[in-house]
């Protein structure tokens, strides 16, 4: 850059007086190790969110059980996993698994090395992190699933029953599809959180994005590596917000006033349909609130 003092001033800020190299950030972004870290972060987040959501759904039925013992267990589960830090759960599980001899042999299984990972994560660490993230997520999803299902008018289940459906059929075909509309927005936030929470697994040696970046400390460019990691986290969460918005639009298809479709500002269409008028979830369908069809006879 030239000798213009103003340019020099900003240059020194942007490069921390010459010690920070933006070129290195660019190189880190697409290094094999970093890309593999992104992959592992993504795998762990998706798997843990999936299992956590299933645990959350199962907890709904456990907490609605006729058996008091089951209800107590469900309540205690949520109380415990929401009441202790995720980091503690991860570290605890990592140290606990070998004690019950579940994961001990796994330490010597070089699964990730076989899969071609440069920074090979010990399998027991991966499993400990995966279980802790899933169980923790289950407790939060339990609350979200409960709010979603409880928001559906009980008349829906009654109608399903009156048609000869069992309560499971009514749940599966009638209530859950409607509850999904209520569940998906907070579920999206949970997954956004999950993408970032996986970084806690770095503490037990899982080579996800953060740990991979940390491992570049020896190069003396750790700040640049961390910047690359941050850019990847941002990319993941941004892409997810687009996917989430599109899922929500599809789920809302039967709820949206068609005259409003596609007319909201671009940002509104991407970030959560806030400009599209929908009937609030669970609100009764009444004559009054409805647009009057032109051709009713």
């Amino acid at each position: 850059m030239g000798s213009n003092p103003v340019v020099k001033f900003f240059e020194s800020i942007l490069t921390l007086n010459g010690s920070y190299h933006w070129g290195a950030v660019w190189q880190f972004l697409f290094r094999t190790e970093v890309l593999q870290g992104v992959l592992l972060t993504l795998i762990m987040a998706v798997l843990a969110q999936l299992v956590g959501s299933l645990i959350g759904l199962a907890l709904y039925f456990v907490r609605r059980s006729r058996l008091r013992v089951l209800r107590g267990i469900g309540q205690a589960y949520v109380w415990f996993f929401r009441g202790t830090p995720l980091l503690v759960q991860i570290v605890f599980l990592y140290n606990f698994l070998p004690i019950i001899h579940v994961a001990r042999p796994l330490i010597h299984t070089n699964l990730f090395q076989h899969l071609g990972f440069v920074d090979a994560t010990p399998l027991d660490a991966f499993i400990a992190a995966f279980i802790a993230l899933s169980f923790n997520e289950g407790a939060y999803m339990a609350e979200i699933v409960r709010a979603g299902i409880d928001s559906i008018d009980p008349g829906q289940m009654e109608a399903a029953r009156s048609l000869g459906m069992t309560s499971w059929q009514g749940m599966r075909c009638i209530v859950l599809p409607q509850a999904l509309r209520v569940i998906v927005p907070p579920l999206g936030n949970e997954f956004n959180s999950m993408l970032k929470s996986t970084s806690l697994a770095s503490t037990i040696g899982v080579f996800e994005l953060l740990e991979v970046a940390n491992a570049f400390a020896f190069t003396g460019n750790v700040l640049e590596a961390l910047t690359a990691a941050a850019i990847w986290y941002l990319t993941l969460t941004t892409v997810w917000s687009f996917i989430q918005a599109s899922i929500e639009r599809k789920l809302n298809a039967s709820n949206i006033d068609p005259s409003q479709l596609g007319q909201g500002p671009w940002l509104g269409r991407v970030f959560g349909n806030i400009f599209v008028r929908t009937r609030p979830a669970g609100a009764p369908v009444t004559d009054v609130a409805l647009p009057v069809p032109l051709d009713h006879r």
Partner: protein
Amino acid sequence: MAQETVATGNSGSAPMVDARDVHKYFHQNEVLRGVSMRVQRGEVVCVIGPSGSGKTTFLRCINHLEKITKGNIYVDGQPVGYRETEDGRVVEDTEKNIAAMRAQIGMVFQRFNLFPHLTALQNIMEAPIQVKGANRAEAEERAKSLLAKVGLEHKADAYPARLSGGQQQRVAIARALAMDPKLMLFDEATSALDPELVGEVLKVMRQLAEEGMTMVVVTHEMGFAREVADRVIFMDGGVIVEEGKPEQIFSAPQQERTQNFLRKVL
């Protein structure tokens, strides 16, 4: 209880609905205090009465949406919701049996209760596919003809939120008919409708009655009861106060409570 059932297990001769001394408590509150009634095959029975008289609760007991506290209800000769164990105790029936019984009894709700995430056509197809295992093409064919029957063939792909109240209730009737019920229960089917939409729903109900459907209709539509019902039952305070032919109930009610009620609503 249920001794007769074993004997009259054959349907065909039994009345469609046979309720005997039905009692129902909500906590300490006795809302049904011994209701007995029979509905014959092909009969249209209208149940009228002030709100809180227990008529809706009684209707909901017929397909076991409410559990009765005491008494028996038989539909087509089969006990509803309860069965006798080998050692003679009476217990609630299995969910599967209850569901199978409900599949033969259509119900239409005051608030329609259409499935808002499904189109009109899908609302009608869902139960035949899930419960009867009908194949999709057959179910769709049947759903279309039922929509035509209630005059809504042009609304097949509309979601409930895009239908008027009257249209929604007609879809709800078609949805119940899709299961080929032998008995239809109507729970104040027109009470949630704007006045100008009531007629289109009553027209469909009248058509059903003319086709010989057995119907129990809880209603505030006295005109409908007078014209369509074979028999009118007046309930108040959890008991049947008076019943008879519509002309008798509406023109010459015997009981004072019936007279008072009719004076207010007519």
